[in-house]
């Protein structure tokens, strides 16, 4: 009985939020341009489903492309940093500095280089998603138990052996864990870039709707973003569980 309630809880809470929202808008008689009621947003979603769908696909495309590049780049650089203390010492401060730059500030430069549209969105997604992957992979490699390393080195293991047998498998839970963060960030990057410099994508659509004072459509855009975000996060969480089940011993084990 209890389990059933826990399973239903996410749905109940979501529905509850929308019900309270609807009631509050009705009770306070809020005008639609301040806060549209969920029913207004839903109506807008249906009315504009075609542009919302098209622009969602564009945002999804730039996000996934940027994310894919971040996975490849982040994995390679993470392995390099975790491998060598010299690379770590040299690159880490640079990485911190690079990561502290708000990525929205980079978009104007990208526009100068590549014009507006898909490419700046992909690159922004890549830039923002890249860092957590690097840090997590490098952490996994850098935290090999010294005893384990001694056992293997005493057997004559080379650095490559230790990395292949211990380091890389060991950093995989960190890597797959970081994908959940990275995909969310990549999404943020895409939308930021679309809002500043694009002629398609959900970010662009919301900006256009705002300039026409179509507030329900702006909110419908937000809902579309939330749905996309949840789906991608859930996908990453599923991949994580499938790939590194050994790290989730106990109740969560598939």
């Amino acid at each position: 009985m209890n389990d059933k309630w826990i399973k239903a809880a996410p749905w109940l809470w979501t529905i509850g939020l929308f019900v309270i929202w609807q009631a509050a808008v009705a009770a306070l008689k809020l005008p639609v341009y301040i806060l549209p009621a969920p029913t207004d947003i839903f109506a807008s979603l249906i009315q504009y489903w075609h542009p919302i769908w098209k622009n969602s696909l564009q945002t999804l495309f730039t996000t996934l492309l940027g994310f894919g590049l971040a996975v490849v780049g982040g994995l390679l650089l993470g392995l390099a940093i975790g491998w060598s203390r010299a690379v770590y010492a040299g690159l880490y401060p640079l990485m911190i500095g690079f990561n502290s730059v708000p990525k929205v500030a980079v978009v104007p430069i990208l526009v100068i280089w590549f014009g507006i549209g898909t490419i700046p969105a992909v690159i922004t997604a890549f830039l923002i998603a890249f860092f957590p992957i690097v840090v997590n992979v490098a952490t996994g490699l850098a935290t090999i138990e010294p005893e384990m390393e001694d056992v293997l080195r005493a057997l004559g293991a080379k650095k490559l052996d230790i990395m292949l047998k211990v380091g890389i498998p060991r950093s995989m839970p960190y890597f797959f864990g970081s994908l959940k963060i990275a995909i969310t960030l990549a999404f943020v990057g895409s939308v930021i870039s679309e809002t500043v410099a694009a002629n398609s994508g959900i970010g662009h659509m919301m900006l256009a709707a705002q300039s026409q004072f179509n507030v329900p459509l702006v909110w419908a855009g937000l809902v579309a973003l939330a749905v996309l975000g949840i789906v991608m996060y859930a996908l990453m969480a599923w991949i994580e569980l499938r790939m590194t089940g050994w790290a989730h011993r106990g109740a969560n084990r598939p």
Partner: protein
Amino acid sequence: MSGFVDLRNIRLTYGGGPDGTLALDGLDMTIRKGEFAAVVGPSGCGKSTLMKLATGLMRPQSGTVEVAGKEVNGPVSIAGMAFQNPSMLPWRTTLQNVMLPLEIVQPHRRKLSKERAAYLQKAEDLLSLVGLKGFGEKFPWQLSGGMQQRANLCRALIHDPALLMLDEPFGALDAFTREELWQVMRDLHAEKGFTTILVTHDLREAVYLADRVFVMSARPGRVILEKQITFPRPRPIDLTYEADFNDIVHELRGYIAEARAAA
């Protein structure tokens, strides 16, 4: 006289330079082939450093380390090692963990894929020898601490090392499990005849298992006493409750207390 493991006039400083910590100074130790040696001493006396020296993971500033008649210049690969932390890899089954050294040490590494069945059999045999028959397919985190430590011993022995180095392997276990594993260790040594160096805090463990106990001084460590243990083998566990056994433990304890006071 030269033995299987020969440490002569070793001096080793941690941290390098003149202001580093002097860990070992004037250490001499000779261990014969097939002998079971135990090293005891006050904490921080450089016992664990000794293991790294004998396996070639560390080089002394001066003095020589010889293993099997050859001067040690790098990792020796005829050694197996086990620590207090079993450090099993959680993504491998117990059997796969035990077989890990075979994927690294030559000539096994070369032969592993061709003679997989024979090696698997060997690993299974070793597991049953330590009482883990049928647990090979379990993941290490499904085993108790004592069972993990048994698997750890198997991993240290799978490539038939001529030298086994143990650094407090039973330190984290409860008293009963520890006694069980002493007997496992006793039987493994009797069957395989490898040379063993056991570093431990536990004097009863040292006296029960070893042919010779080396007592080290406080830092900088050197050997202050070699004690031959002459109880006949195989030694029953009840031996550890007999008077002459306890006399030796007591005597060793006196030396260590002295070494601590001198520090």
